[in-house]
């Protein structure tokens, strides 16, 4: 097992809710509430969950775009949790982000050259044959024409724009890339192009990804390990195969069974788990296990005791009192036949 590139321990982000003239804090939205995981060098970690589960906030905390209210972020052995702007700057080279919406993440008044060249300028990096040449090399790498250097974002289609965003991300050869819904704004046929591009770049440049997405099929395709979030908590974390083939948390099960399957023959025979209602508000999440209000296996204990994230099989952690598909001697972490 390779060393962790990034390690997150008990990460918390509580957004204050204020009221009145004095802006007194009356409540907090616990967007991320004690999340711990590691990202190993060269792997892709998928982060999935429904809207409001805190997956985007987690991504922004890791990149230090927002300040965590608790917990610890360790990147390459350095604690970066509360590092100052100035000290963070050199590290920004190593941690980059791909955004969801290729229409709002590129400045419409800058040329492609200026957009992709910006990281060089900001970081004050000199390249051997000039920034222009470096930018053109990157454009070629992501499948764009180097002659696009002087064009503006509006001249490109959605898929091409996403490539421009990826080019900017790659400009300084980062080690870790956080991709927040990198393909969800794109057409189906373009999604596949960008997914393949991300995979090729990972192989070529030895990148590590954290991919945040709501589409479970896309996540299965690109991830090595997958973390499932629900209302600010991590409920399950496992390698791809065990998570998709023998999910332990009822929520993961429900998510997987809700995905529509493109096979008309299967619509009759397929057994579905249908969750009732919507995700509760993170302003006032249910106590103890946050999923108990929608869980069909919930019992008294789920309403009073919060289940800890436990390793029930090698590389398979789950936070549930009544996990499914768990090996018999779960507590001893007996090797599961997966």
């Amino acid at each position, binding site marked *: 097992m390779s060393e962790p590139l990034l390690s997150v321990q008990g990460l918390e982000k509580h957004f204050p809710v204020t009221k009145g003239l004095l802006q007194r804090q009356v409540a907090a939205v616990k967007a991320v509430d004690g999340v711990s995981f590691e990202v190993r060098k060269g792997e892709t970690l998928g982060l999935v969950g429904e809207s409001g589960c805190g997956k985007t906030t987690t991504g922004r905390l890791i990149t230090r775009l927002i300040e965590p209210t608790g917990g610890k972020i360790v990147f390459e052995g350095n604690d970066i949790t509360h590092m100052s702007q100035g000290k963070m700057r050199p590290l920004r080279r190593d941690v980059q982000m791909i955004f969801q919406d290729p229409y709002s993440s590129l400045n419409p008044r800058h040329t492609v050259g200026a957009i992709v060249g910006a990281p060089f300028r900001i970081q004050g990096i000199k390249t051997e044959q000039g920034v222009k040449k470096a930018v053109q090399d990157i454009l070629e790498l992501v499948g764009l024409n180097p002659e696009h250097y002087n064009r503006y974002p509006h001249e490109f289609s959605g898929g091409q724009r996403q490539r421009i965003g990826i080019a900017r991300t790659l400009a300084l050869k980062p080690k870790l890339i956080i991709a927040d819904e990198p393909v969800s704004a794109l057409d189906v046929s373009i999604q596949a192009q960008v997914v393949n591009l991300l995979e090729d770049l990972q192989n070529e440049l030895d990148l590590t990804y954290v991919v945040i997405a709501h589409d479970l099929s896309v996540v299965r*395709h690109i991830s090595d390990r997958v973390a499932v979030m629900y209302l600010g908590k991590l409920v399950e974390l496992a390698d791809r195969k065990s998570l998709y083939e023998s999910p332990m948390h009822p929520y993961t099960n*429900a998510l997987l069974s809700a995905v529509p399957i493109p*096979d008309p023959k299967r619509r009759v025979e397929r057994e579905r788990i249908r969750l009732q209602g919507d995700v509760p508000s993170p302003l006032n999440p249910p106590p103890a296990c946050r999923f108990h209000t929608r869980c069909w296996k919930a019992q008294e204990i789920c309403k009073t005791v919060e289940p800890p994230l436990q390793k029930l099989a090698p590389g398979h952690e789950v936070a549930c009192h009544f996990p499914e598909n768990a090996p018999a001697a779960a507590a001893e972490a007996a090797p599961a036949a997966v």
Partner: protein
Amino acid sequence: MSFLELKDLRIHFPTDDGLVKSVDGLSFSLERGKTLGIVGESGSGKSVTSLGILGLHKGGRAQIGGEIWLDGEELVAADAEHVRTLRGKKMAMIFQDPLSAMHPFYTVGAQIIEAYRIHNDVSKKVARKHAIEMLGRVGIPQPDRRVDSYPHEFSGGMRQRAMIAMALSCDPELLIADEPTTALDVTVQAQILDLMRDLQRDFNAALIIITHDLGVVAELSDDILVMYGGKCVEYGTAEDIFERPEHPYTWGLLGSMPRLDRERTERLLPIKGSPPSLINVPSGCAFHPRCVFEDRTAGKGSSLVPELVETEGGHLVRCHLPRDQRRSIWENEIKPNLEAS
């Protein structure tokens, strides 16, 4: 004649940059109690088609041609005022984004009551009772209280349910759902799809579901129409489209999509390039610049628009490749690659 029949429907928009042929010669028919799925990427003309059927392009700049027959009545040439009386009663629409489709200043109940009273001569009290009943029907808890809620007080899934209640309040015979679940989370999407399936069975309406998600289409549709560049490129039963598709674009869509019900494939097989601009639709077959098999058409791809031809039992394909060749490509070159080795 079928309940709904489109014959060579054309909806063109003149713009400063040229004529946008959003829908260019679309024909299909649909019976009561059946579901048609229309699949396509952005700009393929699927939403324009649905608005066209509802008569919502009338009075605008659109140039509309062809015929739309709804229950024996022609709508393209019909008076806009007359089509208005059909909307809501005879045909209704479920929009993608319920937050922007509902009026934020009025309660959900008021909006359902208004629509119901336009088409039915009843008192406010009776209409309100009907609205509560409809909200209960689509699974909104405590409908007698929620009827007085404003749209912003509902969650996304509940809003979409309210929207469906509104669409169904006058018992329409044709229901068009334009990306009804795209804005929703996957668990809520599953609830809404179940609901639509149940309601359609109860109301025996004809349902058109428009989406880019092949999974959603497979869950609901009897028949599927694949659109590209304003034209139908393939039409058939759900089994035809998913098990023996014959158009290279349909193959491309299937290859682009990672699937949870199969072994994971090492690589996705995307379609090269991007969807065409409708101002500048490629000559000949609109798909030819992106088609992998264009070189097998002996140059016809770029010069000649292929006809929509029946290949077998109602399965229509618009492609220059001969039928046998299409089938052998699907069996030998495409299908094996979609399944993991």
